[in-house]
């Protein structure tokens, strides 16, 4: 009979391959969901147990203490950030411009002794829409195309992942900032500096607060950063915001300074109301440009994971650590 089970084990269908991206994306989605509150249990029901526990606790306190056992060293805890990024760029000759989208996954493990950054994982540059694809084909399907209005070119096709390891990284700069929103806002404004216009100062302050919210800080500081962010001049509150994967949260928006390709757009931060953790930061058009309608995200950074972990960094195979990254933006 045992042989029959062994034979059956041989007939096991091949195990499906795990899609790590889907796995991590699902994990981020699941852990972003609220969990039902714990059921309240009557203390009276457990009163005999509580009395017994109190007696045991008292006995333990009164007994002479043995020497503490030697504990194995706990594995180092790291701040783990997994982000999925998208960015639009206008490329091609002025007579035949088209939009490409750069998409990639970035991952960071920041520990006290070292920091590991994996960038451009599953990275790709491709025409944004079918219309853009047709224009790219008209241009002869180039593997690199000049940035419209810029000095560089963009490589079209898959990106090469890169790994950077820093030993002895600088300590988390946000960890020691005030946990009071008013004090924190003043501190962030001081860090932003007083150069430039008030709008520029407000934007820099808002960006610092957003950056702080994704850092390894205590929950009260994260809440303070969001409260401070809400009070920065020019920031407006957004109601329910929906992300690409269907998750939703509340958010804030602030008008953004122009780049060399886009002018009218705002930076939005979407936050999970339950956890207080940021879900996404994105730049969204507030006026149509380059054939792109209002509300098009021209840059988006979705936070799939923001967690403390003891898991060692997972590095992509075949990538040399600290080798020069092959950027999709190159000199013309």
């Amino acid at each position, binding site marked *: *009979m045992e042989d*029959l*089970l*062994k*034979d*059956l*084990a*041989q*007939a*096991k*269908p*091949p*195990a*499906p391959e*795990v*899609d790590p991206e*889907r*796995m991590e994306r*699902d*994990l981020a989605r*699941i*852990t972003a*969901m609220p*969990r*039902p509150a*714990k059921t309240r249990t009557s203390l009276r029901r457990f009163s005999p147990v509580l009395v017994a526990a109190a007696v045991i606790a008292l006995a333990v306190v009164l007994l002479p203490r043995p020497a503490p056992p030697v504990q194995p060293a706990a594995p180092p805890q790291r701040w783990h950030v997994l982000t999925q990024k998208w960015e639009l760029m206008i490329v091609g000759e002025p007579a035949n411009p088209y939009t490409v989208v750069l998409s990639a996954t970035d991952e960071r493990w920041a520990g006290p002794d070292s920091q590991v950054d994996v960038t451009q994982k599953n990275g790709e540059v491709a025409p944004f829409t079918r219309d853009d694809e047709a224009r790219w084909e008209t241009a002869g399907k180039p593997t690199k195309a000049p940035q419209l209005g810029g000095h560089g070119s963009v490589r079209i096709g898959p990106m090469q992942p890169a790994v950077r390891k820093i030993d002895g990284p600088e300590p988390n700069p946000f960890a020691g900032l005030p946990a009071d929103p008013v004090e924190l806002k003043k501190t962030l404004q001081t860090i932003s500096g007083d150069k430039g216009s008030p709008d520029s100062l407000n934007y820099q302050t808002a960006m610092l607060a957003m950056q702080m919210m994704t850092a390894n800080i205590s929950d009260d500081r994260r809440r303070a950063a969001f409260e401070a962010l809400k009070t920065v001049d020019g920031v407006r509150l957004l109601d329910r915001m929906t992300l690409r994967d269907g998750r939703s949260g509340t958010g804030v928006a602030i008008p953004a300074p122009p780049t060399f390709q886009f002018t009218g757009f705002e930076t939005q931060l979407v936050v999970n109301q339950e956890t207080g953790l940021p879900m996404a930061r994105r730049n969204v058009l507030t006026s149509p440009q380059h054939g792109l309608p209002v509300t098009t995200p021209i840059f988006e950074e979705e936070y799939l994971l923001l*967690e*403390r*972990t*003891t*898991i060692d960094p997972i590095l992509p195979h075949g990538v040399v650590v600290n080798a020069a990254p092959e950027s999709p933006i190159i000199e013309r």
Partner: protein
Amino acid sequence: MEDFSVVYRECYPRVLAYAAAHAGRPLAEDITSETFTIAWRKLDQMPSNALPWLLGIARNLVRAARRQMWHDELTDVAADDDYAVIELRAALATLSEADQEVLTLIAWHGLSAAEAALVLGCTTATFFVRLHRARRRLRAALSTSNFDRARESWKTS
């Protein structure tokens, strides 16, 4: 949350394999995702050995999926499997769903009898009885006319 993440990453491949074996690959990832979503909501109930508990959740989802669509779990068989393997799978397919489940939890998903009993929601003793009967029926199926018919269908597919 960290504990959940550790369990998630550890058990994900096994839940996925279970879902793929019993509901087919197209549904496997969705069932796995839903399994962990339910697990997250019931995190307070998650035992330290989480795998049997997770497979129990996956099992309910597989059953629900099967009620919605017809599925033959042997359709995923690789074409280059040897004849003995094909014979055995065909014999397995002639058994009841309950018998298949008892056998595959041990032979395919590597659970102990106690763990498999947890998945099925029965005692270990009951599980052993069901396993004994299922093995007997599988052996019988290997030499019945039903199996011959199944074998003919494999030859022609």
